[in-house]
């Protein structure tokens, strides 16, 4: 199968039961994406697949043949600055332990790509599939708010596109 991950093309084989998450973490060493619930309940494994968010723990790798994937590592490839959303997460202190953060970032990134000027309620609804146990929700909300209000286009779409 062929998979484009963060703009890089990979030719690889995957057994039928292997998930996209396993492929990313174990085969491509992209460990930013986390395994938490392993059944699509928490959103920690969220990645972008052809422009839409998916739970990579529930997505079979073989079903992604020909697809384009964006992970947290793709938001700021080596040698580039952090994305506006990542910088806003730092500025607003939207990451405590940071374990849910990669999934939150991809969900927020995709939300803003699809709805550049969301209301607070649209952000709350759009982000409610990504759980955080440290309680960073108010700070994540204000980080997304700040990026949306600044009207900064999300730059990393050159990978997903």
């Amino acid at each position, binding site marked *: 199968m062929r998979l484009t991950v963060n703009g890089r093309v990979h030719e690889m084989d995957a057994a039928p039961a292997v998930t996209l998450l396993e492929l990313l973490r174990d085969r491509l060493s992209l460990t930013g994406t986390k395994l938490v619930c392993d059944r699509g309940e928490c959103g920690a494994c969220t990645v972008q697949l052809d422009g839409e968010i998916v739970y990579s723990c529930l997505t079979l790798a073989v079903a992604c043949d020909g697809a384009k994937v964006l992970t947290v590592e793709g938001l700021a490839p080596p040698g580039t600055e*952090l994305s506006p959303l990542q910088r806003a997460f730092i500025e607003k202190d939207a990451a405590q332990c940071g374990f849910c953060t990669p999934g939150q970032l991809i969900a927020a990134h995709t939300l803003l790509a699809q709805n550049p000027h969301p209301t607070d309620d649209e952000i*709350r609804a759009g982000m409610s599939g990504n759980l955080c146990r440290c*309680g960073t929700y108010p700070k994540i909300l204000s980080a997304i708010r700040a990026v949306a209000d600044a009207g900064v286009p999300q730059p990393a779409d050159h990978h997903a596109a």
Partner: protein
Amino acid sequence: MPRKSKPPAKPGGFVQTTVEIEGRTETRIVEMPAFEPAAWGDDAELGIVGARVPRMDAPERVSGRARYTADITRPGMLHAYILRSTIPRGKIRSIDLARAAAMPGVFDVMGPGDAPEGARLFGREIFYAGQPVAAVCAETERAARNAAVAIAVEYDALPFAATFEDATAKDAPRVRAKGNVMEIAPLVMSRGNIEAGLKAADVVIRREYRTPVQLHTALEPHGAAAEWEGDRLTVWESTQGIFRVRENLAKALGVPLSKVRVIKDYMGGGFGAKNSAGPHTYTAALFAKRLGRPVRCINDREAEQTDSGNRPASTQRVTIAAKKDGTLTALFASIDIPLGITGYEGGPGQIYHEMYACPNVRTEETFAYVNASGMAAFRGPGYVEGAFGLESAMNALARELKLDPIALRVKNFTKREPRQDRAYSGNNLLRCYSEGAEVFGWSTENRKPTTENRPLVGKGVAAQVWPTGGGPPAYALVRLNPDGTIDVLSGTQDLGTGARTVLSQLAAEALGARLSDVRAIIGDTERLPYTGNSWGSMTTASVGPAVRMAAEDARNQLFEAAAAMLKAKPGDLESRDSRIVVRDTDRSMTFGEVTKALGNVMIMGKGSRGPNPADTAIMTFGAQFAEVEVDRDTGVVRVTRFVAAHDAGRIINPTLAESQLEGGIIQGIGYALFEERVLDRSLGLVMNPNMHDYKIPTMADIPPIDAFFVGGADAVANHTGARGIAEPPIIPTAPAIAAAVCDAIGVEQLEIPLTPWRVLAALRTAERQSVTPSQRPGPPRHRP
């Protein structure tokens, strides 16, 4: 009662001091630091301490670069999976490991008898569902898990007890080898005379409150990777206490302490559940030893939600008695706690003795063992459960006396810590009440009737106390590198709290360095000096003073070295922004210029945490205010507004500290509204060991939160002026929300979580009865 600390001895001498850890008081012998920096009071001119600087390791956390335990890979690493019991009590009649051992990719299998005694793993007798019975080690996690399914276990089931009532019944089955009830039961704490207090009262209220089992649900599960090099063991562990894990491993495996190294870089939350080594740690270390290859063992979510600790449930029968003016005359609670198969006596009782100035207080706590996974400390252990009973009873009393619940609390404010009759190092609880109320817009007068509106709206308040003094032993080194940058070295942990940032700020302030020149290196038992577990809201107040002292020691050495270069006396030098200036001159050198001139001569400051002040209560206080909407058709409760005011002494980084407040409140909202581990009484199994059926709050559940600090530096507590803050904010959240629901619907809420069906039942009660709550008769076992 703790013994008094002796007056400070000479530097280097040893003294006795007391340290409070999550309500437990420990006496320790500690050496006097070589010098004690002057305390930073409110008048100290500080630039970096107190500043809202961004979390220093945030770039790693937002980029996916931060390496957590499950991200650790080692050459040749294998994966282990633990098979767990499917019954709550019994004996293994037979277990067949051969089929699993023959599965593809499998390297090794362990079962009963394969682990050393000290690891307490893979026993033949089963005490709870989820208990480890065997483990598989294979090339991949998937192969290990698949093979574990092939292990055939036959059990002889025995009767079990899953509830307090079942475990303490006359003909109760034997929950474990020793008794079903903790030996100290009932644990009695008492002051004054309850009977006298009841006689003196104008009003007596009796209630029975119930709290559920809450699961930590850290997003990163428990996990470890282990590797042996000869007789030396290295373990990467997601833990709140690297030195404690080292001690656990050495003891369990019979290895000298010096041969075990524990590393923890980043971790994905702990909340009290990650204070020790566990089955995953021993399993990884044992397989690694047997196979001569690195082994990683990470809990899956079901194991995490079944067998990695919990906040135990409680039933609290409370009697609260007062004069008409609200003056408390008696406070009594008889409390039942089903611990699980293991646990300790950190129960709900203590906060009853510490919160208010009541002269007559008595708690009787009975801790029972039940056939379920053992409890573990969970953010504010005991006080969270106790606050639900105590603060709900205070709110009930306020309703009965028609007093403002804040006025009632102010009336019973205590100027001295009443349990041990000690002075406070500082106490701004009254300001928490007044400033919190002002920000919230608290008023119990002129409330509009809400009967015509929907949803119903209500407001509630509750308060909190928690010991946060920290204490010794804790050590730090601060070294200057030849390029003028600074390393802070301390064997502590950052759970996501911001410890790296806070310790760096303290070092930069004390050295007069730029914060960007400072790096905190933590989390390695072999290469860093000792600090204790990051529990009990202790890290800042324990490690912070050691870091400040180490930085001042380094600065003194730096000034000695620079004095000759600048042709000045060390006493004439001062430093700021990593530059040393001769006072009242234009002569100066940067740190980098001095260290470059020194070459590889190393400036290294040493710091240690001194003893705590004698006979002093060092505590964090707070008051929280909730507004809720209750949907009268569905029973759904939404928190619509939340205000929290806390006093924790000096705040080193307000942004990070406010994140701690919000985090505690959000976990408290979960505790109040959704979270409840369901253990089936007839099966003895956890029915919701996942994140769908065990509900933690989502972003959509969280209202605007205004959480802030009142008060200032606590120069008595320690020389940084800071107390702890991590646990306090979860303590009063649930009773504040329950009071708001009561305010909305007119019926007291005696049991959490306030799920829709529970609230609907209360709404039906409200319809049947008058809106004022009737006084419930005390249950039969209740006295006095």
